[in-house]
């Protein structure tokens, strides 16, 4: 029954086509870390601060830690499943083998939209940052941000088109610089090196402590996800890493640890310097809070470092998003869940080039046509729907293929506790989104219901049945 080998050197383009011109296996654990952290680290540079706006600074900290627990569950569950389902498409491919085709189609769309919207949010921030730098450099007009938004997306799409190794090596370097910038800002402003400028007590006293009361804490969970959203994208590289069973769990778990540190430091730095109303308004107030904190530090060196850090974080994230969204789109095309035209691999660069190109205008439409908080909310909602799938996925995985039936590269402990905790935190986050963004929530789920019906009653006829099951696994229990 095992008609594919996930470690094959000669036939690594898995799927019903069994193509021999597959994606290239060139990545190591550091690239996996760079892909995961690179996508997410921008969440510390922008977007998370909407959580302050929804509940105040303390609420944002609680949301940061609870979201950290949520993502730790995600990383644990994902590491176990993906160390076994080592194929491009990540959770899409997992769902296809474990839950069923319609679920897989939905999960694939969650991934594409979460990453494409995140990419659009990154481009918006990059454009904003360049306009601020222009103002600080003496430019007196209102800089048109659109050319910079377009150029950022086009440059990164080109990089992705040319090859995955260069793309993720670039990510590794700029992500490391962006992470170091946060550490330097923390050391420089907290009083550890030189004089500190933190004023937590004065900025968070009285009504500023919990301006919305307990409901604000729940509401803040909505944007608390932004601290970590995208770490699950490490699985998209599964078909391009040299040793998936080792590299994917290692890179993913190292990534979530890095982000837990970065998220807490970011909260500490920004809430100690910026008033909560300014910090919490990411559209009219603080679009890039770490950069704004550096501006108040009075140090030109820190301003430059955090300006570069913000730019690098947005580029790294957009870069990783193009990588991940295109892999998910490509995988669905390869299986004919989407038109098969998208399932092509570039004969020279070995990248899913048609999917990369196709998603460029989609990202541009979102980046140029929608406000940042709406784009972020749609990205979060798609991510949240995906996280709700994960507990169902791991429970079904363990039931259909118990531990003694398939060798895992990593077995997550305390099952089913992480799945139950994850499900409970997802339910809380749905309520948090409902508070203030209920219309988008209903619109998004309405969209997924309509496309699900479209897939089940129309599109699925073009999909081969047995051939889409490509893992060398035994028959699942109960079938």
């Amino acid at each position, binding site marked *: *029954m095992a008609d594919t080998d996930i470690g094959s050197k000669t036939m690594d383009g898995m799927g019903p086509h069994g193509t021999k011109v597959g994606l290239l296996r060139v990545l190591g654990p550091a690239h996996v870390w760079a892909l995961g952290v690179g996508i997410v680290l921008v969440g510390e540079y922008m977007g998370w601060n909407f959580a302050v706006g*929804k509940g105040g600074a303390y609420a944002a900290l609680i949301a940061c830690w609870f979201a950290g627990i949520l993502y730790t569950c995600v990383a644990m569950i994902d590491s176990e499943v993906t160390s076994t389902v080592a194929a491009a498409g990540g959770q899409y491919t997992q769902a296809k083998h474990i*839950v*069923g*085709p*319609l*679920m*897989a189609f*939905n999960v694939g769309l969650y991934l594409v*939209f979460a990453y494409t919207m995140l990419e659009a949010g990154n481009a918006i921030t990059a454009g904003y940052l360049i306009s601020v730098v222009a103002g600080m450099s003496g430019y007196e007009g209102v800089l048109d941000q659109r050319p910079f938004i377009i150029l950022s997306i086009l440059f990164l799409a080109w990089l992705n088109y040319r090859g995955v190794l260069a793309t993720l090596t670039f990510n590794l370097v700029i992500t490391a610089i962006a992470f170091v910038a946060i550490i330097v800002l923390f050391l420089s402003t907290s009083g550890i090196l030189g004089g500190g400028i933190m*004023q937590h007590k004065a900025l968070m006293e*009285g*009504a500023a402590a919990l*301006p919305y009361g307990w*409901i*604000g804490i729940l*509401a803040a969970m909505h944007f608390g996800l932004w601290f970590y959203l995208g770490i699950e994208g490490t699985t998209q590289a599964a078909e391009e890493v040299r040793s998936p069973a080792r590299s994917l769990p290692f890179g993913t778990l190292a990534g979530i640890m890095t982000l837990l540190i970065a998220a807490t430091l970011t909260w500490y730095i920004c809430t100690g310097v*910026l*008033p909560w*109303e*300014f910090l919490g308004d990411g559209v009219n107030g603080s679009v890039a809070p770490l950069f*704004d904190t550096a*501006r*108040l530090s009075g140090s030109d060196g820190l301003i430059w470092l955090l300006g570069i850090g913000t730019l690098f974080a947005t580029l790294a994230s957009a870069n990783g998003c193009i990588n991940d969204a295109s892999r998910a789109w490509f995988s669905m095309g390869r299986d*004919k869940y*989407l*038109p*098969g*035209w998208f399932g092509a691999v570039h004969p020279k660069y070995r990248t899913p080039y048609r999917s990369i190109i196709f998603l460029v205008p989609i990202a541009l439409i979102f980046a140029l046509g*929608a406000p940042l*908080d*709406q784009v972020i909310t749609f990205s979060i909602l798609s991510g949240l729907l995906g996280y*709700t799938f994960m507990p*169902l996925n791991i429970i079904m995985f363990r039931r259909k293929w118990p531990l003694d039936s398939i060798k895992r590269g990593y077995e997550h402990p305390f099952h089913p506790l992480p799945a139950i905790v994850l499900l409970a935190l997802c339910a809380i986050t*749905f*309520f948090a989104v*409902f*508070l*203030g963004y*209920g*219309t*988008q*929530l*209903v*619109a998004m*789920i*309405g*969209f997924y*219901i*309509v*496309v*699900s019906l*479209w897939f089940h009653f129309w599109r*699925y006829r*073009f999909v*081969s*049945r*047995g051939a889409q099951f490509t893992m060398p696994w035994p*028959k699942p229990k109960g*079938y």
Partner: protein
Amino acid sequence: MAHYTPPHQGKLGQLIDVIVLVVLTLGALFVPLKLGMSGAAKVIAAPIENPTWEALGQSPVQAAQYEALGYTPASAHDLILARFDYSFTMGGLIAMIVVIVLYYVLMLKFSETEYRDVIAEKFDRK
């Protein structure tokens, strides 16, 4: 289970499928925006004429940070006083829960039907 052979889809059919998906996607984001139903609008319950930092409820430290950021009490007025309205109806909450649960039930049910065919063709046709 008999082996299923999917029909060939021509280029025009593929193009139409992509257009349908893109239109639905753009609609999900932009229709609520264009209809002004995108939510998240903050409101200012009690605007203050000729605001001062004290009237805006800002301590000297908070006021100093705003000034360092380039704000005056007048320019910071909307930023400081705007608040979300978290009031909701139980009917709205129940409707949201029903929509989400129905969505997952629908997906799991249809997926299971499709999955049984996949497993049958993959493992039972030898």
